[in-house]
């Protein structure tokens, strides 16, 4: 297996285009596990750790730019995730265990597009966009349009993820990520990412994304609309959750049955709302 370590985005794209069957490797926490399990054996690996300009979190006018190579641990410890952007920080803190958080990167996580992963829903709740680089330069893909199916994204051949752009969102917003797991540090049986803003006791803004209940993270404008301008009573939450349950398409697997997953949606949404009510 060949191994390259390009130092610029252009060089990385050139190698991806030149080599047959080349794969990016960021943290390797998923790719190498798949190679160890003989699920995958690419002929070439393109290590991204030396590519300049794609690591770390920077603040700008619009919000934050998170380099694709930024680890979960760096995001989990960062103080930059203010207001609703906090949903991303909260998700990072709940991914696996400390050693995996030292290795795994946000770019690798979303590129792998596991429907049970924590960042995909968090990025949708935060209304983020994904910056992808290729031969023709860069393009931005809204998180809502990035995940296409099980382990499938809108990243085209010879492109790779270089950054995640997170808008500040409403100033008074708050964000939370909750998940149910079989044991500490596991992938989610179901997860909910939620961003809310309050005006007195009234909800003035809501964005909900549910993980591990379909091939892609579930986000419905209609469910957000049920919570927006409501008083967030149990009935409001149940109504929003009912729409999400209806649109969900969960599977039975080792982490839980489809029915159990459906039952978790309203429960987790309530838990997230009540945590955010105490934060706000």
């Amino acid at each position, binding site marked *: *297996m060949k191994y390259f370590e390009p130092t610029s985005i252009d060089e990385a794209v050139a190698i991806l285009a030149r080599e047959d069957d080349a794969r990016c490797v960021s943290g*390797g926490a998923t790719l*190498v*596990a798949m190679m*160890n399990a003989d699920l995958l054996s690419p002929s070439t690996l393109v*290590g991204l*750790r030396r590519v300049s300009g794609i690591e770390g979190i920077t603040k700008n006018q619009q919000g934050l730019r998170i380099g694709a190579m930024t680890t979960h641990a760096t995001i989990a410890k960062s103080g930059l995730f203010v207001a609703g952007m906090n949903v991303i920080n909260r998700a990072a803190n709940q991914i696996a265990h*400390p050693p*995996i958080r030292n290795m795994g990167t946000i770019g690798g996580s979303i590129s792998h597009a596991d429907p049970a992963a924590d960042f995909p829903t968090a990025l949708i709740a935060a209304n983020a966009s994904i910056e992808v680089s290729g031969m023709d330069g860069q393009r931005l893909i809204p998180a809502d349009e990035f995940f296409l199916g099980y382990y499938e994204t809108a990243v085209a051949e010879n492109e790779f993820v270089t950054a995640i752009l997170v808008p500040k969102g409403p100033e008074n917003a708050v964000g939370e990520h909750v998940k149910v797991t079989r044991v500490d540090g596991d992938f989610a049986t179901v997860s909910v990412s939620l961003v809310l803003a309050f005006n007195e006791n009234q909800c003035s803004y809501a964005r909900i994304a549910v993980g591990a209940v379909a091939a892609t993270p579930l986000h419905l404008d209609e469910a957000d609309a049920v919570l927006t301008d409501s008083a967030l009573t149990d009935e409001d939450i149940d109504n929003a959750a009912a729409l999400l349950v209806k649109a969900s398409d969960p599977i039975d697997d080792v982490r839980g049955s489809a029915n159990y997953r459906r039952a978790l949606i309203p429960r987790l949404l309530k838990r997230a709302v009540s945590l955010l009510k105490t934060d706000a």
Partner: protein
Amino acid sequence: MSTDKQVITLNINGESIELLLDGGETLLETVREQLGMTGSKRGCNQGVCGACTMLVDGEPVRGCLALSSACSDRSITTIEGIADGLNLSPIQEAMVEHGGLQCGFCTSGMVLTLSAFLAENPKPTREQVRHALSGNLCRCTGYTKIVHAAMHVAEAYSA
């Protein structure tokens, strides 16, 4: 032999070592199979159990998931680099004293994880120790004695 192999220099336990590596080779494979250092264990080879834990630039990582080629210019510590000759490190000493091991399969990972954790958090609570060990599985001890050992070292540090 495949022509895809490259000569890479790794810094392991303070020593620079030149190795011929395939791009897909993991640190665990390099350390165990090329260097014959078998203190790092292969439990699951999937990142789940922590038996392969090593420190890379001082931080615990999974040796089974780390590509060796991606570790050139980084400083790698395995369990073989923890003791000072025949003098055990404080956490090794405490593991022995408190019965923090039975079969020993998880022990190198436990010791490395705790070494890194205690270096950063010299006065942890029991709960923080348990959290730090959440990525290391032990099938024998029930964890209690490992946590005792860590708390003992922490108390000795702060005394």
